[in-house]
C-alpha cells in the first residue's frame, strides 16, 4: 500500500476545498438555510405535522441527504475531472499507485468534504427547528455510506465526462430531480398510489427513508431494505470503477 501517495492526493484534494471555501462549504450551507426559511418557517408553519413530526423537522434528513448527494457527486467528479482536463493526471497515472489507492484517496477526500458539509447543515438545521436522533449509529451508517457511494458515483462521472457540460449534466438532470422526487420534502405516502409505486424505482427514496427513520423512527420503506439498497448501489459503483480501471476507460489509450 502506497500510503504516502494516498496521503498526498487526499491532502491535495482537501487543500482545494479550503481554497474554495465559499464555493464548497459556505454556498451549500446558505442554500440549505434558505430551504429552512422557506419550507420550514414560511410554508412549513401552514403544513400540518407529518406522522407527529413538525414539517420543519421532517425535512431535515431529506435536506441533509440532498446536500450530501449533490456535494459528493460534484466534489468527486470535479476532483478527478479537473486533472484530466488540465493534463496533470499524467502524474497520478505514472506514479507507483494502485487503482484502489487512487480511488481511496479521491473518493475519501470527496466523501470527507460532504460529511463535513452534512454535519454543518445538521448543526445549522438545529438552529431553526427541533431535531432528535433516535438511532444515532444507524444515522451515522447511512450518513457515511451515502457519502462514499455518491462520491464513487461522482468519480465515475468525472471519468466519463469529456467536457464541463457533461460534468454538470448528471447532477443537474438526474441527481437533483431524483432527490426532489425521492421524498426529501414529503412522505411518499402522501402521493397517489400509482406514483408511490413509480417512486419505489427511485434509489434516493431508500436513502432518504432510511436516514429519516434513524432520526424520527418514521420510514416509507423498511430500514433494512434501505440499507440493502444503499449497499447494492455501493457495490454497483465499485463494480463500475473496477471496470474503468481494468479497461483503462478514458484514462489510458
Amino acid at each position, binding site marked *: 500500500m502506497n500510503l504516502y501517495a494516498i496521503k498526498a492526493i487526499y491532502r491535495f484534494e482537501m487543500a482545494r476545498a479550503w481554497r474554495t471555501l465559499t464555493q464548497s462549504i459556505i454556498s451549500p450551507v446558505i442554500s440549505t438555510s434558505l430551504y429552512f426559511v422557506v419550507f420550514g418557517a414560511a410554508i412549513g408553519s401552514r403544513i400540518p405535522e407529518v406522522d407527529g413530526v413538525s414539517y420543519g423537522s421532517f425535512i431535515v434528513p431529506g435536506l441533509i441527504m440532498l446536500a450530501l448527494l449533490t456535494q459528493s457527486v460534484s466534489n468527486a467528479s470535479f476532483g478527478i475531472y479537473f486533472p484530466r482536463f488540465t*493534463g496533470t493526471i499524467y502524474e497520478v497515472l505514472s*506514479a507507483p499507485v494502485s487503482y484502489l489507492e487512487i480511488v481511496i484517496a479521491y473518493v475519501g477526500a470527496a466523501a470527507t468534504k460532504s460529511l463535513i458539509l452534512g454535519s454543518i447543515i445538521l448543526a445549522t438545521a438545529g438552529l431553526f427547528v427541533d431535531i432528535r436522533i433516535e438511532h444515532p449509529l444507524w444515522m451515522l451508517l447511512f450518513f457515511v455510506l451515502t457519502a462514499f457511494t455518491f462520491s464513487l458515483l461522482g468519480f465515475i462521472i468525472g471519468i466519463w465526462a469529456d467536457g464541463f457540460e457533461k460534468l454538470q449534466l448528471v447532477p443537474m438532470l438526474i441527481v437533483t430531480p431524483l432527490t426532489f422526487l425521492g421524498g426529501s420534502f414529503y412522505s411518499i405516502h402522501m402521493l397517489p398510489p400509482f406514483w408511490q409505486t413509480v417512486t419505489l424505482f427511485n434509489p434516493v427514496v431508500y436513502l432518504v427513508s432510511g436516514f429519516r427513520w434513524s432520526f424520527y423512527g418514521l420510514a416509507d420503506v423498511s430500514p433494512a431494505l434501505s440499507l440493502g439498497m444503499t449497499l447494492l448501489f455501493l457495490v454497483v459503483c465499485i463494480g463500475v470503477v473496477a471496470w474503468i480501471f481494468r479497461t483503462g476507460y478514458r484514462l489510458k489509450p
Partner: protein
Amino acid sequence: MTTMLSVSNLSKVYEGGFTALKAVDLDIRRGEIFALLGPNGAGKTTLISIVCGLVNASTGTVKVGGHDIVTDYRAARSLIGLVPQELTTEAFESVFSAVSFTRGLFGKPADPAYIEKVLRSLSLWDKRNHKIMTLSGGMKRRLLIAKALSHEPRVLFLDEPTAGVDVELRRDMWNLVRGLREDGVTVILTTHYIEEAEEMADRIGVITHGEIILVEDKATLMHKLGKKQLTVHLHEPIDTVPEALAAYALERTDDGHALTYTYDAEREHPGIADLLADLNAAGVGFKDVNTTQSSLEDIFVSLVKQ
C-alpha cells in the same frame, strides 16, 4: 554495462487504427544519456508513455531496472521520473507544495531539505511560495523537471525538454542532465533538435514511422555517416574542371570561383595532398581552402528520407 531499460517487441495500435509503434526493440544502458531522435509523429511520445504507464501497449514487454512495467509496476515506476512535453501543471498550488505532492505520489516520505535542493538547482527556490499560474512558461518547465526529480528517480525521461525554451534555460538543463549522469541517473531525451542530441547524448536512436531505424554511439554514428568536404577557393574562376582532375569528382561552385571535393575522413589516404598537388600541376591557382564536416542534422535528414 548493465541494461536499465529494456523494450522488446513493443507495438502500439491506437483505437482509431493508427499504428504508433511497430515491434520496437531497444536497450538503454544504466547511466547513459540516450537521445531518441525523430520527426513529429514518429512515436517518441508513445514509446515514453508506454514505459511510464500512461498508455497501454498492444504487444511486447518493457522492463525498467529489471522490473516489468505491468506485473511489477510499483517497482518499475518508482525508478522513473517523467518530464512531459506539454506544460501541464496545477494552477492554484504553490511551487513547493506541488513538488512535495509528486514526491508523496511516488511513495517517498516528505523531505523538505531534498525538495529545497532540487528547487535551488533549478533556480525555483525564490518562487517556492508562488502560485504556479503566476509562473512564466520557462519557470513552469523548470517546475516540471523539479517534480520529476522530486522522488530521486534513477531513470529520467525528458520529452522534448527544450521545445520553446530560452538559451539560458537550455544551458541550465544541459548542465543539470550532465550532473544527473554523474550521479548515475539514466537519462532518455526525445528531441527533434539535432544540436541537442549532438551536445548531450552518449548514444542516439533514430525513430521514424514507429520504427527504430538506428541505434548507435554518437561518435560512431558521426564517423560512420560523416562526410567531409574540402572547398578550394580559386584565384580565377574556371569554366570547366580540368580533365586531369576528373578522378576527384570535383564540383564547381560559386560560378567557378570554388571547387568542392567530398571525401571520407576515415580513409587512410583521403587524397587531399594529392588533390592539391594535382591542382598545382594543372595550373589552377587557389587562395584558400577550408573543410566542413556533415552535422548530425545532415545525417538525420538523409536517414529519415530513406
